[in-house]
């Protein structure tokens, strides 16, 4: 799979149709998921605010998933010195930062009616914030170095260093008991969530994932085109 995609031309041929189809799939799934979510009965404790879950939880997942993609691309970029992997890492970071920020903002909007506070310093919120700061650090480092290849490699090293943070984000729920909703979906004996909420949540999670895939592929394509344009400009100047 990886070696197949490592050929830039093959990647461009594949992503040419894969990116838009993933995008269409994401929009359809999001419409269905949001429709089902809107028709779900209000929660007996949370009322209508439970709807925020359908936007918030997938964003938090994707924030972490995008970091895994970023770290994976960074690893391939560092080890195999493949320009496509560098482009993929470069393309994933702003998307992941966006998802993490979305999770923070929607979580804050959800926390105000439920906990009575915009923000509480609980483990998961703090870890998500730190994840967001990691993205910011990655983007800042990449922007600060002029030489593109050097910037990519330095940022990739940072991404791998930061990958240590990812398990801490996930297991912080277990490490520190907290105010935040504990793990309720992937637990022994099946999900604690009732099916009326689980289905829309699953559809939204898929929609977010496909949406991320579509945007990521498009950004990688744009990055490849940008490099080709740069190479052509150098050639023309000779």
């Amino acid at each position, binding site marked *: 799979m990886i070696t197949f995609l490592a050929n830039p031309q093959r990647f461009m041929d594949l992503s040419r149709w894969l990116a838009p189809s993933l995008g269409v799939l994401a929009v359809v799934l999001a419409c269905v998921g949001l429709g089902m979510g809107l028709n779900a009965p209000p929660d007996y404790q949370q009322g209508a605010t439970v709807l925020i879950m359908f936007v918030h939880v997938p964003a938090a997942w994707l924030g972490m998933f995008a970091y895994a993609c970023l770290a994976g691309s960074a690893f391939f970029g560092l080890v195999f010195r493949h320009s496509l992997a560098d482009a993929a890492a470069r393309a994933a970071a702003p998307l992941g930062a966006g998802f993490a920020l979305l999770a923070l903002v929607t979580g804050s909007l959800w926390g105000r009616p439920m906990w009575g506070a915009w923000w509480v310093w609980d483990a998961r919120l703090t870890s998500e914030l730190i994840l967001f700061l990691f993205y910011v650090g990655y983007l800042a480092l990449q922007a600060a170095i002029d030489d593109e290849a050097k910037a990519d490699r*330095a940022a990739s090293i940072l991404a791998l260093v930061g990958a240590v943070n990812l398990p801490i984000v996930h297991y912080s729920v277990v490490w520190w008991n907290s105010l935040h909703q504990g793990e309720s979906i992937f637990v022994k004996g099946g999900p604690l969530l009732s099916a009326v909420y689980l289905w829309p949540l699953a559809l939204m999670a898929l929609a977010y994932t496909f949406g991320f895939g579509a945007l990521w592929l498009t950004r990688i394509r744009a990055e490849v085109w940008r490099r080709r344009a740069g190479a052509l400009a150098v050639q023309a100047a000779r």
Partner: protein
Amino acid sequence: MSALITLLRRELALAWGKGGGPLVALAFYTSVATLLPLAAGAAPQRLAAVAPGSAWLALALSSLLSLERLFERDYEDGALDLLSLGPLPLEAVSAVKCLAQWISTGLPLAALTPIAAIALGADPRLIPLTLAAALLGGLGFSFVGGIGAALSLGSRRGGVLVAVIVLPLFAPPVIFGAGAIEALADGLNWTPGFLFLGGYCLAAMALGPFAMAAACRNALS
């Protein structure tokens, strides 16, 4: 081995030589600790509640600011090129530089941390643990912060960039160290936090030099 010792002596001589060395870091630490009561209010009870944590935070900040130029000077004057050609691998060079940073700046800062905590109103029986945590934490701060210093070589922005890269990485030691001291202050079991801090610092010492060396090679290439 002798090459390692020579390098360590060079680093220590440079750190203690011109420019004030650790005194600047100590002055910075004192300034931060002075601003805290001015910002948070000088009421003894309020101050005592945050004293151990603030002393710990000030330690993190002073460690960070004193190591931002850990590799920069050698990079600018070409010494890093020579070191990369020398008999020692860059991993060992980075580890020795971080160790020298800890000896020259981390130890004095660690000695100052309990004093600042007491001045802010912390319970004197916290002194031994605060000192031990500061010694251990300083080692972790130095090895983790070195990664940021090495990564920012050749970049257009210096200090702020290092801070943005490194401060999120400081989160676990800050949590564990302050957590252990808080736990002792509350009469709880402080060992888990302290052991976690130790584990984090050992991991930083084991893995950090590889990241630093990779970053230096990238900057030199």
